[in-house]
């Protein structure tokens, strides 16, 4: 059921994001259409979708938190646990597999010392083996957060990781 959402005066999000949400729900014929983008943007800001975010988003849209969880748990980019500052997503799907994606993933495992869906102790990197990310002609491809890196080799991968580490240490 959908009930009119009483607007929450207080928000757990930054003023910019809260303002963006206020706008987002008005763009569509129904508020609920904003749900998935909202979850993703909330995650971008907070690292993962927190319980508090679920509650607030449910309220903003006027649905139950259960309903939010039903949707949230369906989408593989959305998560309810924190990951590293840089989330390294290695594609091993067919086009990438044929060009060494699997091996690249193994390489990252060794290099970062973590496995699939694990985070380095310093919290800088987390690693995930992912399905096709739409970069097949430039395989093997990796996404770090939302940034694409393609045509990778082991060395190129190391360079990419080093750069992120440097950024993190700044």
């Amino acid at each position, binding site marked *: 059921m959908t009930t009119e959402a009483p607007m929450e005066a207080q928000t757990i999000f930054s003023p910019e994001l809260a303002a963006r949400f206020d706008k987002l729900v008005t*763009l569509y014929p*129904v508020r609920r259409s904003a*749900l998935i983008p909202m979850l993703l943007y909330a995650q971008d800001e907070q690292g993962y979708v927190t319980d508090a975010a679920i509650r607030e988003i449910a309220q903003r849209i006027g649905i139950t938190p259960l309903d939010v969880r039903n949707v949230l748990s369906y989408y*593989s980019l959305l998560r309810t646990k924190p990951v590293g500052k840089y989330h390294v997503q290695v594609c091993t799907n067919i*086009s990438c597999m*044929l060009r060494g994606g699997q091996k690249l993933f193994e390489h990252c495992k060794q290099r970062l010392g973590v496995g699939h869906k694990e985070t380095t102790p310093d919290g800088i990197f987390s690693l995930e083996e992912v399905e096709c990310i739409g970069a*097949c*002609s*430039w395989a093997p491809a990796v996404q770090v957060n939302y940034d694409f890196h393609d045509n990778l080799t082991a060395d190129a991968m190391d360079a990419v990781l080093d750069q992120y580490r440097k950024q993190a240490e700044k």
Partner: protein
Amino acid sequence: MPTLVSHPEEVKIVSSRFGKGATDIERYLELDGYQAARTAVEKGADWIITEMKASGLRGRGGAGFPTGMKWSFVPKQSEKPKYVLVNGDESEPGTCKDHLIFLHDPHTVIEGTIIAGLAIGAKMGFIYLRGEYRYLLTIMEKAIADAYAKGFLGKGIFGSQVNFDIVSHTGAGAYEVGEESALMESLEGKRGIPRIKPPFPAVVGLYGGPTVINNAETIATVPHVLRMGGEAYAKIGSERNGGTRLFCLSGHIERPGVYELPMGYNLKKMIYEIGGGIRGGRQLKAVVPGGSSTPVLLPNEIDIGMDFDQVGKAGSMLGSGGVVVLDETVCMVEFALRTIKFYQHESCGWCIPCREGTDWLKKTLTRFHAGAGVAKDIDNIRYLAENMLGRTFCPLGDAAAMPTIAFVKKFRQEFEDHLNGKPCAYAKQTIQEPVLV
């Protein structure tokens, strides 16, 4: 940044503005941008649909449904608002063409959406991008804002009486959401579970209103069709397959990349001439002609024209235009496993055959590939896939079943060779292959 490739044989229509800075609206206008939309506003819906029908353009999302016809199914009168929904969920493994369109030519998508809206009488369009394409969403959002600023969107577009709005929207990681009815569910903020059909989207779609759903490439082609004229566009392609399409060459090929070629272009030529042949001069082992869901072709089956009908006749499908080339070093069991692993991961889980079928195929293939296969596994894999085929709620189940059946059928010997605890003779090569140079 994805690299752009080029080949003299290409016929650049959709890709004609790639690499020319057309994300900038001024530049786009210099390159004849928004002219088709302007004309469309003047000439109206009937003219658009006539041109679209004449163009022989068939949907680039996978099924190849004639676009003009699809639009003509939308009822003229409707109580509920009508919508255009652009499918930019591009997730079929082997496919990365929409990626380039959004990256290099976002305004064509906007322009195509406007034209589709005019054709069916919609006042609103949505452009749905997969969640992974966040940087493309940013590009798209800016392009939309610029179009509003120019009066190409919003109230009275191009100085007419017509209003049209576009909202760009992001997904959050789900292949199944590319299926048109699941796409609508997702856009409505729900789990990506497909809808029962009928009713079809053209009659009851987004928010209950009649809706046209097209692939991003299809939509990006529309302005070009109107600019060139439907007939001229049709002539470029093969019979009943108008125009060009973006082919994504990937895998063991010398020059992978996205090439725009006329429909019906010979596959063998595409691999050996356009793509420069098999990487390292190796032997071709197999080709997946249209994204991971299309049945694999053997080297002796690839002397065919790449259009919906000819590939269909060869026992596979043109699909989404992702041509994946496999050389002799590939273990087909491993390849089958990787393919099914994807569908298992992406099955929405709604229906029994797909949810359970993909999972058992994955389990069986995993064990099988690891060398613990038993003889009945091979038949069981085929049994599972054959019993999924045509019986699932949406075509994802078929997309998992079809390639699986083809792998077992065409490479049965390789499966047999994996039995009896024998180490995988093929995979060894793949794994040890020093591709990471």
